């Protein structure tokens, strides 16, 4: 009996621990198998010696959210497979921004970090890479690559190789995992979107953002993992401002599995997706829009959705007269995602509350002198008095350390200490004073840049020094505490959508106006000098709470971190 119980218990624990890991390993093994055995014959069978497969520029759904139906072992970036002879195909992946799940499958991994911010250079250097391999036929998924990406790619590889591009349709049909279709990944939309949110955004946010952007028709062609979730896996939405307080909403779906048809005034199910834009000419002509926004963008990659093939078909379908009126809808898409209705606020508020409840628990198992940073779940770090950081590594946590995560920090009491030492208490008080300054001085209506400038002024009035990098600056007044800000959007695709009150990110995000109910991170870092420890020695404390900008300033939806946790 004892033996049976023990075995059962051990098996249960092992099963739980191994379950998720094993699943990931099985996925990688299957991809390796396809790379090793299927890829060479597929490329050769299709008479292709280079295949460029362009994925999302980043994975907006976080770790574990697979974005690619082809299961190539990465959730963002682009892969280049080259047949250089022999049994094996050379495999390269670029601009994957930390989303590569199976690094061992690739021979070349390039430019992992900067891609998301530099839309113009996503394909920088690829021309040389391609020329070096001098392929005769380059397969590309014309139905998957965005219109803007296609233009950038062809520009980078030059006319010579652009002429060698060919549709990857047949190759994709041969290579995709047998049970998976592109539509499957499109069905997996962010769960936070409910029918209520969609309807309320149509009612409350859409009219304003279309008018703000002077767009009287918005055509949004759904892509894989579309952030907008129009309620169907494949198709497109056409939104027309026909006056009044409401925007006309039409959905053209390539299947009849529509989540909330009632949200639309017009619903068309298109039987033959090859003729998907066929009826649009009449539809558009009848409404005669002056400016037609379409979801392509050179600068905002999350708003860059329409594929090259779809754009071409769309422009052809609506005819020259209206094709000339097409403009990018990128800011409109940003504004639409940033403008929050109450059901969004509370939806994200509740998930945030659950996270806040878990915050302190991750420190509970720390044993000073025994526990390494790498043993604590999540993004965990320690900065020493000189600002050197140990990050999720083998560093063993010691008494006197201040262990940080973006959301909460914990101090490990030294022998004899019963509470936070005075300097740590002072550090916390600075954190609270800065929180008060930020909460009182952010309002809707100003741009992020104007707000940043305003906040810098307020911080300086209060005796702080603003720093545009998250590092202690030894050249500044050694008596003053330094503050770094990165008040980025939180909600859909976090840092990427909407105004960013921060020195970080591309310039255009600072020119966006802060909308009502803007949900964002009160992310700021305090670097407090401790002169008695010596010149340049300091303490560091980061904050990362979620706020909402209302007409009254910044409000919290759930309790923000309220202390430095103390570990005995």
């Amino acid at each position, binding site marked *: 009996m004892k033996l049976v119980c023990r075995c059962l218990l051990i098996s249960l624990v092992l099963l739980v621990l191994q379950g998720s890991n094993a699943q990931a390993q099985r996925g990688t093994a299957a991809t390796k198998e396809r790379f090793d055995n299927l890829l060479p014959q597929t490329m050769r069978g299709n008479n292709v010696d280079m295949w460029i497969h362009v994925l999302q520029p980043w994975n907006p759904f976080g770790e574990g959210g697979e974005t690619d139906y082809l299961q190539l072992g990465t959730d963002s970036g682009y892969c280049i497979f080259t047949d250089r002879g022999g049994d094996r195909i050379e495999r390269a992946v670029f601009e994957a921004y930390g989303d590569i799940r199976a690094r061992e499958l690739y021979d070349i991994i390039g430019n992992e970090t900067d891609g998301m911010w530099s839309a113009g250079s996503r394909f920088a250097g690829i021309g040389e890479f391609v020329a070096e391999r001098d392929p005769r036929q380059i397969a590309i998924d014309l139905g998957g690559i965005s219109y803007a990406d296609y233009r950038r790619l062809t520009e980078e590889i030059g006319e010579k190789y652009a002429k060698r591009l060919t549709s990857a349709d047949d190759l994709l049909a041969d290579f995709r995992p047998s049970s998976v279709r592109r539509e499957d990944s499109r069905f997996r939309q962010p769960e936070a979107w409910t029918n209520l949110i969609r309807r309320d955004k149509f009612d*409350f946010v859409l009219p304003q953002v279309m008018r703000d952007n002077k767009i009287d028709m918005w055509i949004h062609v759904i892509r894989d993992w579309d952030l907008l979730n129009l309620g169907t896996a494949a198709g497109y939405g056409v939104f027309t401002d026909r006056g009044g307080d409401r925007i006309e909403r039409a959905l053209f779906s390539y299947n009849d599995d529509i989540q909330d048809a009632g949200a639309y005034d017009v619903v068309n199910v298109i039987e033959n997706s090859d003729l998907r834009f066929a009826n649009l000419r009449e539809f558009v002509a009848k409404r005669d829009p002056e400016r037609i926004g379409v979801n392509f963008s050179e600068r905002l990659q999350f708003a860059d959705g329409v594929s090259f093939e779809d754009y071409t078909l769309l422009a052809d379908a609506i005819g020259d007269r209206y094709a000339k009126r097409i403009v990018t809808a990128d800011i409109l898409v940003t504004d639409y995602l940033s403008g929050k209705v109450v059901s969004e606020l509370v939806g994200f508020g509740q998930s945030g509350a659950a996270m806040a409840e878990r915050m302190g628990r991750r420190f509970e198992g720390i044993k000073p002198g025994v526990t390494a940073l790498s043993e604590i779940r999540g993004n965990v770090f320690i900065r020493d008095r000189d600002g050197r950081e140990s990050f999720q590594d083998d560093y063993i946590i010691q008494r006197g350390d201040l262990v940080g995560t973006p959301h909460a920090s914990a101090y490990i009491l030294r022998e004899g200490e019963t509470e936070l030492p005075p300097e740590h208490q002072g550090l916390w008080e600075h954190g609270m004073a800065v929180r008060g300054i930020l909460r009182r001085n952010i309002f809707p209506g100003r741009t992020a840049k104007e707000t940043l400038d305003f906040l810098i002024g307020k911080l300086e009035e209060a005796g702080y020094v603003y720093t545009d990098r998250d590092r202690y600056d030894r050249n500044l007044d050694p008596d003053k505490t330094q503050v770094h800000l990165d008040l980025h959007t939180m909600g859909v695709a976090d840092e990427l959508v909407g105004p960013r009150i921060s020195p970080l990110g591309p310039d255009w995000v600072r020119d966006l106006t802060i909308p009502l109910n803007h949900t964002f991170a009160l992310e700021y870092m305090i670097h407090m000098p401790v002169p008695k420890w010596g010149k340049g020695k300091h303490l560091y404390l980061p904050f990362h709470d979620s706020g909402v900008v209302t007409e009254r300033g910044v*409000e919290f939806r759930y309790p923000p971190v309220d202390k430095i946790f103390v570990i005995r």
Partner: protein
Amino acid sequence: MNKVRCLLTVLCMLFLVQGVYAQSQESDAAENVINLIRMDKFEIILPQAMRDNNVDMWIYVVREDDPLRIDLGVDDGICVLTDRGGRRIERAVLGGKGDKNVYDIFGSERDLPEFVTERDPKRIALNYSEQGSGFNTITQKDRDKVLKALGDKYAKRVVPGDFVAVDFLSGKVMSEVVLFTKLGLECEKIIEGELDKIVPGETALKDLSGNVFVRDPDGNEENNTDYVIQRGDLIGLLHSAELMNFNMHIGGIAYVLRDGETDLPLEVKKIWEHALITREIFRKNIKAGPTGRETLELLIRKLEEAGYVYIDDDEYDRNADPEKTQVHIDFHTMGRSVSYEDAPRISPLGPEWTHDLKIPLYHTFTFEYMIHMPVPEWGRGKHLYVCLHDGVVVTERGVEFPYSPLDKIRAIR
């Protein structure tokens, strides 16, 4: 065998300890939310509530069972809130313990005369009411004590504090809206569970938890009685959920299919359509700013323009146009346990003075309305009845639902 028993005992203990631990964490989390709400209300709502009521000092004597004890964060003592200019109200507790995150000053009750003189307020609100509101909470003894302590000069400046209390509670911060939603979703889950229990011909109304009712075609109501639910009944069920000083209740509707029916009958579908049409009328026409009375008048006009008859009582009016569907409204505040009656109300019900209160921004209330739809083929005066009861929020943009409102009449097989 003993070893197995030991192992089981240890496992039971572990579960028990884990359970207690989880419970204590849950209660800590709830307390943190309540603390955040309190802090934010003092920061964001209080200055506006005092200035709107032209009050520069609000004295609130809190005793053990005071309904605002949790909201004010004081167990027992005198809470003195003073507008000394700037964006913040000075907060003091004299003679008691208060939330240290909220209050700036702690002193003795004996300090009151000096404290008030030093601040020299022009109008002092005290927690009593002249119109019988629920905020008439100060005892005669305490009131005499405070007035004596203030002395003639300041006692003359004392006015009822009920309007400040109403505005302080009605004005919602974002964390309250989130909690309002959380409780709404809890209610929704409970209601679904209760409706799941219905067995036609067996389950009595009183077997279900909540406020459960059925009206017959003549409008006779069975409410939480021995009445056994029958096929063809249209059942309403309201249920509440609570957390400390917060409370919320919403409603669900179910129709019990008759033998042979596979879907809602036409008349039930039709009454649901009326419910949705009128919901849109309400959503489009309620804004922050106007009073409850002004809003009610506007809604009556809009209902009539859309072909409905508004009724003051929740009873079918046999004298009204028999072709027209009748609608009754009671949009009362919702969210807090203490202020259902003493808050802005878009309704013919409740004290008159509440109808003259302005609808504040982020007002959380209920879309409680009743549809009485005549069914002429059943005979003169025969009708169907449904009651809707969803939580909503007034924002800068109008009325928004923080969670999905009732989206159908549920069919029970």
